[in-house]
């Protein structure tokens, strides 16, 4: 079995700095070989035989599940790229308006893509100057922030400290778990944005320190919000699995990202989950570290969260 090639999804609005970052990745002497899938050749202005153009073809799967829409063009292009040897990674650029969900889902739903590649991280380039306007004017901007594992907050040299703090607060309100990296001209060490394994369950454990502080829900006018749930009382495994699977099945369309570490009553190991829409990865990830408190932490990022009675559902799963 060949190694799975890491894939980074690069989102962000026009002008935020995606092209600058792509050009750096393609031209810098880092000794690695990346294939880049872009939307428009003209925009990037790069000529490289490892750059290919996508068509944003969204395919629905025959099971009729809206959460299983995939990007047919990516399936085709990745299939083609897998015919070459020696690729170290793939970057997929999406336009400001493209829904990142079908891109992420492609890596779960299509068996060939899942076998050959793994989603490494969703990287959103945001522009410190214009992000607030983008968030006010379009729901796509909020969704791109919501999906992100990393937000590259670019052009920070063009705003003052107060404005920067306000923008970061807005980012945090939408996505409490993403890593925020401040840059001026996308001048970030590439190891900070590539090869992160952000979708692997053990990484969910690693980001625990700044996962969240206690219970709080964020309200926001973007329509995309987050809710963090916490319990010191173990969860009843049956009740939790039932609640969680029903939630994904019925509300998966509105749940953009979810991440959590669950303390299951009667189980010695931590149960870790992470997902995109209704596609969920969950597993036991080893015993609780010695001397560390057993507790359950769960974060949902999505739309219409208030209507899902998440807190009530969560509370009802606590073991008596």
């Amino acid at each position, binding site marked *: 079995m060949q190694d799975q090639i890491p894939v980074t999804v690069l989102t962000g609005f026009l002008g935020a700095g995606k092209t600058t970052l792509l050009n750096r990745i393609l031209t810098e002497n880092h000794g690695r070989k990346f294939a880049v899938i872009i939307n428009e050749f003209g925009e990037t202005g790069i000529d490289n035989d490892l750059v290919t153009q996508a068509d944003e073809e969204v395919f629905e799967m025959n099971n009729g599940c809206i959460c299983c829409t995939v990007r047919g063009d990516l399936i085709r292009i990745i299939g*083609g790229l897998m*015919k070459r*040897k020696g690729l170290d990674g793939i970057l997929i650029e999406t336009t400001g308006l493209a829904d990142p969900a079908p891109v992420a889902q492609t890596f779960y739903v299509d068996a060939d893509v899942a076998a050959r590649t793994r989603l490494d991280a969703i990287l959103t380039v945001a522009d410190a100057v214009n992000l607030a306007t983008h968030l006010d004017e379009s729901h796509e901007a909020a969704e791109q922030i919501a999906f992100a594992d990393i937000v590259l907050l670019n052009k920070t040299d063009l705003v003052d400290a107060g404005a920067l703090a306000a923008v970061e607060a807005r980012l945090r309100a939408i996505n409490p778990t993403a890593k925020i990296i401040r840059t001026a001209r996308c001048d970030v060490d590439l190891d900070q944005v590539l090869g992160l394994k952000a979708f692997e369950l053990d990484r969910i454990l690693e980001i625990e320190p700044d996962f969240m502080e206690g219970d709080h829900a964020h309200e926001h006018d973007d329509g995309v919000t987050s809710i963090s749930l916490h319990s010191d009382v173990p969860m009843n495994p049956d009740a939790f699995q039932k609640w969680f699977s029903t939630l994904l099945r019925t509300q998966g369309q509105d749940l953009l990202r979810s991440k959590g570490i669950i303390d299951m009553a009667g189980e010695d190991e931590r149960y870790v989950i992470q997902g995109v829409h209704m596609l969920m990865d969950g597993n036991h990830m080893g015993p609780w570290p010695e001397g560390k408190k057993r507790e359950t932490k769960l974060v949902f990022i999505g739309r219409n969260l208030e209507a899902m009675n998440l807190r009530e559902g969560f509370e009802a799963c606590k073991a008596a």
Partner: protein
Amino acid sequence: MTILDPVQRETDPTAIEAVGRYFICDAVPTGLVAVGDTVVAGFGDGQIRIFRPDLPMQEVPAHGGAVLCLARHGASVLTGGDDGRVLLVDIAGNITELAAYGGRWVDCVAAAKNGTWAASVGKTAHVCDSEGRTHALDHPSTVGGMAFDRRGERLAVAHYGGVTIWTRGRRDWKASTLKWAGSHGAVTWSPDNRFIVTSMQENALHGWRLRDKADMRMSGYPTKVKSIDWVGKNPHLASSGAQEAICWPFDGANGPMGQRPLMLCHDGDALATAVVGLPGHDALLTGFENGVVLFSELDPIADPRVIKRRSGAAVTHLMVTPDAGWMLAAAEDGLVLWAPLGRAG
């Protein structure tokens, strides 16, 4: 024999391996075409490798990037690459460029006996007839597969949502559609031109009877169907994607509708990854994910024979020459077995 699994090195070569040759090509195979007693193979390193009886393998640099697709075109082979070019490669390795589409991938090629050929770039199938007239045929989504019928009068183009059948008119090509939800890839005509079958992005084949556009669902595969081929005088469509070669009968008026497929050849729980019929025989070769290739008659009580032992990677492509004299098996890691079938007895 260091190329085989340690366990397999202990076992004797099969009769076919004993008379054949192994080649280690450091590239991913992308397609095979047989012309006479020659097999032309495309690879992901852009090379065409040509295998002839009793001659060394010939390597021909063809495409920049990968060879994405191949089709037989008369006594030569049509290839498309991710450099946007369509090439004609003869069996001596001479290359002629037929078309170039400016850096966009040529995903599929097809050719008809009457000299018409087609190449797809994105949503467009470019068709060129034997007199050099070209037409650009557009589709609602990217072309997943193309095939001409046996007379070259119709071109089936698979895409998201179904298949478009283009029929050659006096001046133009006329479209009719076969609809079925989902994404369709490789497409094939039954030998009698009465049925069309596609392999889908889902774990299924889908077929249509052209007379009335009746749908035929061929599902139940545990994985995607990557390889299909017509086998036998009473044609069966053999397919990979399960633990056996699944062979759907197309010998009656209704095709496989209401019939069960034959399930031939299995090697433990290994998935079948490639199939090919032996031209002129009711028999087929089946390749597996563990590198094994088995031979079987098209008969559920036949005893399969081992053609190739286990090796490191899945057999993704199989080809048998038109006289059933030679076979080629190509595995994902670039290991190729090229062997005469007849001499093994």
